């Protein structure tokens, strides 16, 4: 059985129903890693927020999201809280804002354990130290008592990953987990994520606009454009033999090292005319305007 099953999911915002995610369907099997790639504003983050139940109040959701057989879109907050942080967790993009600046990082991690289990305080501390140690934080017993601002960006992101894995979840959603990091730190954090996901046997939805990262971590990939999944398949297949022109454009723009230095880089518009998608027949159930949400990032 799939860990995650998304069917005909449409998410729109506000009174004008601006569509951000448009009839998306996808499955993730236990232990599977699915990359989700697309440009800024394509709906990647909205899709993730929908799955983990963190959409703002002005969002309208149609369709279904089931996690371990349980429908999430209609799940009351209280029951959702029992799943979120335990079986379904998330690694956020910005390690600075995802942590509470007024709370020691060890306590933040311990809170997650305490919320979802009966374990006593003494054993919790040891568990947190162990997990911090496992994600490669040197002197973990000291770092648990540190405040977020005392840690570097890479250390903070390791803390976030530790928190996402501490309850041995079955699905981790990673939203651009390494974009805020340096290239060398990024490579280390990615390797860590790879090992730790494997060690707890968690499935992963890995959101990124960096195709190279997705290629190195994910077995499967889905390409999202203007809120729709335009292509999905095995990573090598999709990146080496893209069937949709948008994917072809994305792959070409990402392969800077394939172009002779100084020559013109290919752009997506060489492969794909965005107007062709917008003029595609709209879904029969709606007659509201299909517009991409302009997000300021």
């Amino acid at each position, binding site marked *: 059985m799939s860990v995650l099953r998304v069917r005909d999911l449409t998410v729109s915002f506000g009174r004008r129903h601006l569509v951000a995610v448009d009839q998306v369907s996808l499955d993730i099997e236990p232990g599977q890693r699915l990359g989700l790639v697309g*440009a*800024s504003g394509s709906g990647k983050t909205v899709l993730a927020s929908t799955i983990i139940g963190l959409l703002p109040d002005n969002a309208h959701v149609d369709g279904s999201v089931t996690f371990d057989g349980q429908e999430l879109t209609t799940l009351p907050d209280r029951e959702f809280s029992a799943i979120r942080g335990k079986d379904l967790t998330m690694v956020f993009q910005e390690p600075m804002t995802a942590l509470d600046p007024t709370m020691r990082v060890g306590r933040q991690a311990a809170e997650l354990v305490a919320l979802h289990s009966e374990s006593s305080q003494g054993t919790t501390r040891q568990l947190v130290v162990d997990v911090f140690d496992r994600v490669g934080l040197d002197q973990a017993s000291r770092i648990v008592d540190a405040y977020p601002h005392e840690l570097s*960006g890479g250390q903070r992101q390791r803390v976030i990953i530790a928190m996402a894995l501490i309850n041995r979840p079955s699905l981790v959603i990673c939203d651009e987990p390494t974009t805020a990091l*340096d*290239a*060398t*730190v*990024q*490579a280390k954090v*990615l390797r860590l994520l790879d090992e730790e996901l494997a060690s707890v046997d968690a499935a992963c939805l890995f959101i990124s*606009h*960096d*195709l*190279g*990262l997705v*290629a*190195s971590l994910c077995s499967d990939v889905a390409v999202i454009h203007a809120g729709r999944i335009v292509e999905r398949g095995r*990573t*090598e297949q999709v*990146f080496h033999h893209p069937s949709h022109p948008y994917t072809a*454009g*994305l*792959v070409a*723009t*990402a*392969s*800077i*090292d394939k*172009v002779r*230095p*100084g020559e*013109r*880089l*290919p*752009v*997506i518009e060489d492969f794909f005319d965005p107007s062709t998608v917008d003029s595609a027949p709209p879904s029969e159930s709606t007659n509201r305007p299909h517009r991409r949400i*302009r997000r*300021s*990032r």
Partner: protein
Amino acid sequence: MSVFGLNDVSVRFGGRRRSVEALRGVDLVIEEHERWGIVGESGSGKTTLLKLLAGLEAPTSGSLTFFDAALDLRRRETMAKLRSSVQMVFQDPRGSLDPRMTIADIVAEPLRSPLLRGRGDVPRDRAARVDEVLEAVGLDRSAKSLYPHEFSGGQRQRIALARALAPRPKILLADEPVSALDVSVRAHVLNLVNDLVDSMGLTLVMVTHDLAVVRHTCDHVGVLRHGQLVEVGATGEVMDHPRQAYTKELINAVARLDV
């Protein structure tokens, strides 16, 4: 003639008790029409080096020359020459454009600088020059009456480029010009930078942590680590035969598409 010369330059921040050395004994010569990429991790001193070249920071020790003349931040004449021929593009186009100014005002602002008066070749007709540079960066004239928030990240970086190019600079400094942009927009902006540097005969110094960008755009590369320039050379040479272990590590850290 060399544009910039750095001779044993160090920059130290902070007081006597706790100080940080952002740059340590840096030697570097940048010739006219060269395209330099400066790479390194956060905190390696990349941005400090760029600020030094822009005349926004003074060396604590060592000497800095600009067109073979000593550069002294306290001397007005030398600084005027620097300010009128060097322009900069910043990393975050949201932070570097004034949200309360129209695009026309933003792009025309450097043309109003009194430091440009000493130069003979400054465009007189400001409105015409604004049209010209907006066209050069591929933006429609209707953009002039709009405000920065009405543009996407890639478009805003074009506006920042237009502003930098308006006063016909000789040298363009760029601090991570594409790292805030996503992959699909990055190619557009890099193509534009390449075309403009070519057609205007600029000298380019670009700071980045992305070696793929350096390989594509720059003919020379300098690798900074903990404030020291650990490796310098022609881009192809450094990328294909890195001498330092650290440079190798940086090159290997680039995630590739080939699985």
